């Protein structure tokens, strides 16, 4: 049997495991990590099942602040909303993302959450709420969703019958890699509707 030098230290294994936390950087919460593993592969049902179970367990413990999920509770909550949204459960997703918005989270995470909530509300036809959620975006925004925010803003204006207000955000998207074609078409519609 070969024992590597590192593992040789652990002949009395409890001691080895207990006294060698630096052996590797441990993922903060294995079960959250497991949910991410499934979500990364597009298996949102499995991801939700695991994350739901982890949240249920987290809420049952006597001292949640000692639970391994606690340091990542905002990320996990956000991921829960994200997975629910991707699994087309936007009713539940809205609640989870709202919880992130109310929590003390990083500015970028909060802005990302506000955008996703606005998108859900847009899909549900709640245009005023969607615009209100977009107005909550303040400060740094993840680069990946900058264009999405403008596009959604323009779409809300168009859906609400305010083509004039949609023109400015659509003009901003004329050079967007992702939205240039859609934006050009919608800009034409906006000009037509605006007379």
């Amino acid at each position, binding site marked *: 049997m070969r024992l590597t030098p*590192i*593992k040789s230290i*652990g002949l009395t*294994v409890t001691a080895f495991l207990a006294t060698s936390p630096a052996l590797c950087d441990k*993922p903060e919460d*294995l079960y959250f990590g497991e949910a991410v593993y499934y979500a990364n592969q597009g298996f949102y049902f499995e991801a939700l099942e695991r994350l739901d179970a982890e949240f249920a367990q987290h809420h049952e413990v006597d001292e949640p602040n000692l639970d391994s999920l606690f340091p990542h509770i905002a990320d996990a909550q956000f991921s829960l909303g994200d997975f629910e949204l991707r699994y087309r459960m*936007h009713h539940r997703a809205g609640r989870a993302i709202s919880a992130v918005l109310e929590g003390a989270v990083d500015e970028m995470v909060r802005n990302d959450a506000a955008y996703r909530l606005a998108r859900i509300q847009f899909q549900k036809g709640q245009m005023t709420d969607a615009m209100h959620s977009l107005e909550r975006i303040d400060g740094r925004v993840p680069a990946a969703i900058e264009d999405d925010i403008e596009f959604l803003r323009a779409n809300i204006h168009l859906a609400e019958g305010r083509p004039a207000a949609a023109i400015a955000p659509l003009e901003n998207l004329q050079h967007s890699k992702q939205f240039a074609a859609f934006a050009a078409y919608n800009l034409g519609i906006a000009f037509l509707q605006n007379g």
Partner: protein
Amino acid sequence: MSRLDRALLSLLIAGGLVASASAEKLSGEQMRSLDGQVQEIKSDVLGIASELSNLEERLLYPSGTQIAIFVSVPADETFRLDAVQIHINGEPATHHIYSYKELEALQNGGVQRLYSGNVPTGGHELSVTMSGKQKGGTEFTETDTFTFEKGVEPLALGLTLAGPGLGKTGIQIGEW
């Protein structure tokens, strides 16, 4: 066409338009209701699946003997993990061949539950073999053996797998 005929025709057209609009409205409401029902069903199914998983875990892996082995890959790793084999006390416990999608999921922060099983309390030996390809294309296979102590509570072991480097082992273990 007489005036009466024209009036009747106009009424029919107007009636048709109103009926069509109300049918669209009804259809929209029905769709929203259906969407709500689908979401409720999805939520129920998730709850049932979660309960079943918990039940299965409790029945198959009682906490006194439960062991779970998880695998993660550091984010900055560029090696390609092909397969992992686990032996516990010399007996094959599990092996897994990784697809590109699974590897990508691991590299993006995912943690895979590789094995769930039962071992009695006391000392045990865990042997881990991983094979893969380094960035340069060189194939490698690495095996490491660890010992661990199983207590009365469930044991979760985490394996962190990295490409072999100078003077360091690619397989690291920790208890969670």
